[in-house]
């Protein structure tokens, strides 16, 4: 059976061009970049070329890119690094209620270590409450870390506005742009953030490579200590092939972004337009200010897991909640934050699209999915009361 992959926010297939670029470094070019002979120097040069490409994707300087093993590591590094470097100036951190677990749980761990954390509320679309941001800033505030775009609800956040507020008070601001980098245009100089996290496998690069943009002049204590790699900012022998793959993926993403977005945006809108007519199915996140490859919904009276299983039986892969929370059956903090009830949150489903998806994939989905909803509702224990309420679709 042909499979249709609609879970690109969980991970992407590796771009063949990126794999081609990586192969020499998995074979004969295996040198350690710190070695002084030519085999090592070639590995070192390959990393620096990749750094240029990643920098170029977000309009940063090459020296502002630190390679990590993942987006999660970049988030840990940014938050713990600033908290540690600036704890003498204050012990208050602001994050939002719609952050990824690697930000949320890092902030919680700092809370245990004596920091105060404010969890910024969001509106029904998931947009930050910027007034609340202004009000929550105090003399103790040393760091604001806000997500750029949510992988669960797709909303692209007003980071520029948040940066303006942070800069007025001279506070370091970090953004987790793991879901957005390589998927929508990002210009760090225009955004004005001090730090930005990204992950290669979110834009058709390999797993095992991420990066932190660290604005020149921004103070940060490293997370991983040891050798002098990454200019002493991140120790450990560089994952040369994965870094090279990330560079290539960044280069291609930059060149093809518009074309990719036109494609996935069109497919996304086909899904949103079709499903909005299905009874008791609600779009989550903002209808337009959202990632172009992202369509997310809550489906009343049924469970995400059930939908996933039945979709899978048709060869369709999608997600319910973020991949990193799918094992935990707790309601997603992001859905809770946009005021989706815990019962409804169980019916969350995310279709995230990619360059490998075609119109016929969408047609199959749109044919199968409403039937699956109907079948699951027929057997749903949550259905009690159905029909006593108003029917029809509304936005959450």
């Amino acid at each position: 059976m042909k499979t249709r992959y609609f879970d690109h926010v969980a991970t992407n297939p590796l771009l063949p061009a990126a794999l081609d670029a990586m192969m020499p470094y998995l074979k004969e070019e295996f040198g350690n970049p710190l070695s002084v002979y030519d085999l090592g120097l070639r590995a070192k040069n390959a990393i620096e070329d990749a750094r240029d490409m990643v920098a170029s994707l977000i309009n940063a300087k090459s020296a502002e890119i630190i390679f990590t093993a993942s987006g999660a590591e970049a988030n840990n590094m940014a938050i713990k690094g600033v908290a540690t470097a600036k704890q003498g100036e204050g012990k208050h951190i602001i994050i939002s209620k719609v952050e990824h677990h690697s930000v949320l749980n890092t902030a919680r761990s700092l809370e245990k270590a004596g920091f105060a954390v404010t969890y910024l509320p969001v509106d029904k679309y998931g947009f930050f409450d910027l007034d609340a941001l202004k009000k929550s800033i105090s003399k103790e505030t040393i760091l604001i870390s806000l997500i750029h775009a949510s992988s669960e609800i797709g909303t692209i956040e007003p980071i520029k506005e948040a940066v303006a507020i942070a800069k007025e008070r001279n506070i370091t601001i970090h953004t987790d742009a793991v879901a957005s980098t390589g998927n929508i245009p990002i210009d760090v100089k225009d955004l004005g953030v001090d730090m930005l996290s990204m992950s290669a496998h979110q834009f058709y690069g390999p797993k095992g490579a991420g990066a932190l943009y660290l604005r020149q002049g921004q103070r940060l204590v490293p997370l991983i200590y040891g050798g002098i790699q990454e200019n002493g900012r991140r120790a450990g022998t560089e994952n040369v092939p994965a870094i090279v793959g990330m560079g290539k993926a960044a280069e291609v993403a930059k060149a093809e972004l518009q074309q990719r977005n036109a494609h996935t945006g069109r497919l996304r809108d086909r899904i949103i337009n079709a499903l909005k007519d299905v009874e008791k199915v609600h779009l989550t996140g903002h209808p337009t200010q959202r990632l172009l490859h992202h369509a997310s919904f809550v489906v009343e009276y049924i469970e995400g897991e059930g939908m996933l299983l039945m979709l899978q039986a048709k060869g369709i892969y999608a997600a319910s909640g973020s991949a990193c929370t799918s094992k935990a059956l707790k309601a997603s903090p992001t859905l809770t934050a946009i005021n989706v009830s815990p019962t409804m949150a169980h019916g969350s489903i995310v279709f995230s699209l990619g360059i490998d998806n075609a119109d016929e994939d969408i047609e199959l989905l749109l044919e199968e999915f409403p039937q699956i909803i109907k079948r699951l509702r027929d057997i749903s224990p949550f259905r009690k009361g159905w029909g006593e309420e108003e029917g029809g679709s509304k936005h959450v």
Partner: protein
Amino acid sequence: MNIYFDNNATTSVALEVLEAMLPYLKEAYGNPSTAYSFGRKVRDSVERARGQVASLIGAKEEEIIFTSSGTESDNTAIMSALRFKNAGKHIVTTAVEHPAVLNLCKYLQTFGYTYTELPVDNAGMIDLDYMAQIIDANTAILSIMYANNETGVIFPIDKISRIASSKNVVLHTDAVQAVGKLPINVNDLGVQMLSISGHKLHAPKGVGALYVKKGTEFYPYIIGGHQENGRRAGTENVAAIVGLGKACDIAKTFLDSETLKVQHLRDRLEAGLLNKCSNTIVNGASSPRLSNTSNISFAYVDGEAILMMLDKEGIYASSGSACSSGSGQPSHVLRAMNIPQEYIRSSVRFSLSPYNSEEEVDALIGILPQLIERLRHISFLRGN
């Protein structure tokens, strides 16, 4: 033709390992955390790799945590131990540790931690009686490397673990250079934590592992999703993890025969060079050593110059560890061994692998003595 004698810096990925990885760089790209079958199959392969790594060191599967490097494993182990209930604020390590441990300890001083670098003797060995004296109620962790990356000297971790357990101190060993080169059984060793690095045993770069003995307190270092059972966040580097599993599987199967082969090559290399070069010593030779490592000092010659000339001949070796070689610092390991300055500056590390051959060793023996003579001659003319 190139001859690679720098396998302690990094190794080539074994062909079988790359083959095992490729499906996960191509069609099997699912995220192991996803619920559908496509992701679950990928998760199964991560778990299979975990079993292979565990099996190589006699551990249980659930005692293996995948990381991105040996350095991350070392950092994770030490930072976890410092958070144990009632942990002290003192770390005991050695003067010859890898920078992954030493630089972390240095950094931790800014937070009120202290650490002791146990000295080594001329043969690179630590004094266990002295170690026992140094450990006190304030000692939070003992982090002692299994085998030294520069000299290959092997520390008696089993004896060290008896001292550690009698003092009730958690023992971590950086076994990055030992795993895949020595038979290791964590239960016989008695360590609580042990670090592994993939690219030192013909697995790819970008993957490591930390063994944490069941029942040992553990605090994750990279926080986020529930990956690795909540012990290390971040989407799993599936292909590299599969590669590490395969490399461990191969290492387990061929450990005895390959160790013998490599030892034969190393002994041939040392005998050949010592026979033909005067004023030459093998550092750490009187201690138990890894069978693949040879750290040789050719007095009165600059090690860097030797490396450059070998590089021209297509032979790769190193001076000091790759991780500090960019720093221009003379080896902290040889300094700790009290090797005379002229021998430190002239040291070259040859580290072999089962992929090396007798012909390669003989080629080195054929070339190097003449190079040394020439360099010594230049050095003599300059009056150094």
